């Protein structure tokens, strides 16, 4: 259990330090598999059908389906590498450690239900914060989608760590939402890439109607 949490934390650090989206997607896939196993392992003694459904569907969606979708987008758009992030990979790793400390501190101090595991909570919090951080610090839109997935994983893990009575229908609904969200983002990315020849979020101000904001002239297709 705790080993799983540590593995998840390490996988986050790996995403923070990697410049290639392909690697990051694979790591997110592994994260998804771990997260799917998490509820099953957590209540190994008294497993119910609901927990099996949550775990297996989580595993299938987060570990297989979504990464496959992302991989597909990656191939179609031909994005190779996150070249110039706002925050460099080394600094990202260092900041990741700060975030880890912060989430551990929050998890210890937050008033949690009695049966919640502080380690799991810290891990979940860390996932959410890393997701947010990745979203801010990366330029390629595909990394933003991945960051969104990481954040979502964190929310899922938080749900698992705090309470197992999380109604699985809600959990499944959330999974479906994420699936549709990622599907749309992938599609959007593909079209943006085709129209603009890039997927850099800092240049997306060109899409704005407000002329005053867009700083540089559009690079039309």
């Amino acid at each position, binding site marked *: 259990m705790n080993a799983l949490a540590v593995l998840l934390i390490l996988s986050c650090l790996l995403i923070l330090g990697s410049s290639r989206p392909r690697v990051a997607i694979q790591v997110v896939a592994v994260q998804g598999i771990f997260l799917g196993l998490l509820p099953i392992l957590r209540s190994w003694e008294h497993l119910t059908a609901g927990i099996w459904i949550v775990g297996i569907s989580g595993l299938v969606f987060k570990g297989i389906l979504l990464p496959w979708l992302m991989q597909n987008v990656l191939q179609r758009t031909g994005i190779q590498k996150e070249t110039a992030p*706002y925050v460099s990979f080394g600094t990202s790793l260092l900041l990741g450690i700060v975030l880890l400390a*912060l989430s551990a*501190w*929050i998890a210890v*101090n*937050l008033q949690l239900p009695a049966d919640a595991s502080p380690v799991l909570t810290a891990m979940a*919090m860390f996932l959410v*914060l890393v997701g*947010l*951080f990745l*979203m*801010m*610090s990366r330029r390629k839109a595909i990394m*933003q989608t991945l960051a969104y997935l990481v954040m979502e994983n964190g929310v899922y893990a938080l749900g698992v760590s705090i309470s197992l009575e999380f109604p699985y229908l809600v959990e499944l609904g959330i999974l479906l939402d994420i699936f549709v969200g990622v599907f749309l983002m992938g599609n959007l990315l593909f079209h943006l890439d085709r129209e603009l020849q890039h997927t850099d*979020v*800092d240049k*997306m*101000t060109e899409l*704005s109607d*407000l002329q005053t*904001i*867009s700083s540089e002239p559009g690079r039309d297709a």
Partner: protein
Amino acid sequence: MELMLLGCLLQILGGLIALAVRDNNKASLTANLSVWLGCALAAIPVISVLSGNSINPVRLEWSLTGSQLVFGLDTLSAFFCLPFLVISPLAAMYGRSYLGNPERRLGSHWLFFNLLVASMLLLLTAQNVIMFIIVWEVMAVSSFFLVMHDHEQEKVRKAGWTYLIATHIGTIALLVFFAILGSETHSLDFGGIIANRKMIVHTGALFVLAIFGFGVKAGFFPLHVWLPEAHPAAPSHVSALMSGVMIKTGIYGILRTITLIGYTDAYLGWALVIIGIISGVTGVVFALAQHDLKRLLAYHSVENIGIITIGIGVGVLGIAWKLPALVFLGFGGGLLHVLNHALFKSLLFLGAGAVSHGTGTLDIELLGGLLKKMRWTAWTFLIGAAAIAGLPPFNGFISEFYIYFAGISGVRAFTPGPIILAAFVMVSLALIGGLAVACFSKAFGIVFLGEARTTKAANVHEADLQMLTPMVILAGLCVLIGLAAPLTVYLVKAPLGTLAGSDGFDFTGIMHHTRTVFGYVALIFGILYIISLVFYLIKKLLPRANQVSTTGTWDCGYAAPTARMQYTASSFAQPLTELFRSLLRTRKTSSRIKGYFPANTEFHTETPDVAKEGIFAPIFRLINNRISPLRQMQHGNLSGYLLYIAITLIVLLIWKAGF
């Protein structure tokens, strides 16, 4: 009462169908039919209430706890419904032809038109604070979209935004007003508020908020800034509806506030009288300086709202001083002027619309000589102009006469207050009336008389039957109310029951007296009409009547007169505008005359709104300067926005975990 709601529902439904219909003609027809039918249905309960019956309100349960959704009609609502029910169908009919069949689809226009009509009727019947505010907002927003009809034009967009901002500033004041009222009386129903009105503490503050909030809609000076912008920008039938009836909802709101709070102190009366006098005089003075026909009419709305407010103020003072004559004549004059102004102001806006439809311009200086080609428009416009200037024998004279009469009966009370009031009211009404006559002599004279100043004015065509019919009906009503003056005492008696019913006044004496006086007035009007008719017939029967001879208009020995040598509107109004120049602050630009025989020279005047330039512009500039640094936060960079979210999240988490 159910009929009224059914009528409103029908109108909304008709608007929705018009939105869905692809063909413009069909959309216009559907919207028209639903407005007519809806107004006809609504008229049944309104007439029933005004003739002395009381009808049961409709009570509906809704999810809001502690209050009921009540729609009811008392005599005050029913009286205000009258102009709404007359003008709306006529404006719709006019609009159908005015808009014609352009390239773009008219469905959305008709949807908002029908929504506006329905929301105004619902506003008058709503007896719950929440419902009142909801329909108030629907009314504001739908009229905003109607103003924005020609949104391709920069000018129209600007006018629309001015209106939207102004009306929402008013709504903020109203929200605060109703919040205080509701929390102090522990009720959100009008009935409950009246029952608990003794618990109200901040009466003065409530009235200030109400006068501000409703005053923006009504167009009190200096809150009127949206009127001269929005009315010229909107299509004419919309201006007619907005200026004729929509601004009256502000007056209704103030009267409703008086019935709700029941605060009838002399201070309130004086405040209303002074507001009315200021609005009336400044309105007409600014109207004098305008070149745009619809802008001129918009300023006259400010003037007439002023006259109405004077009347209401006199009525409130009458209650405070326990003088039934002042109550009856003040409120009566104000209320009758609501109806009358709705009639002649709509008539004038429709006439202005016919002029702009026929010539393509509303600039008075470019028109001229339209009387010959637009006979019907010109004559109905003349009736409207005489009526709005308060000239006999039309309806405007009657309602202003009520207020004069109130002044005279105030003098006879032989106490200082009413005598001062009488002096104030009569002098300012006389000033307003005189200036209004000058202003409409200018408007009518320059637009319809003389020679065409431009080819636009020369190639004019008369409006079609569908546009003329509403104008003729309205002009007919103006004449009719003038002739039926003695009967108006019964009309205004009904709403007085709601306004001053609980104070136990006996109006029989003053009613009888007023009716007798108006009997003579109507008799004189009748004789006037007969004499005019006789003269007309004599002229027709004279052998030379049908001879037409053409000569140059201003020959005077000059060989080559042109139409451009005519008196212009600006020069006509110049002596008067010069008199008020400290208020008007007209900007004049002219080129210097060079040489002994100057060839080209120009002179241009522009009168910006003093309230807009002097009060609102500096305030908004100040606010803008203060908050514009914040705009840097909205830089359009996605990562930056995410940073805001992250910082908020982390701060919240630390706060929650650490403290």
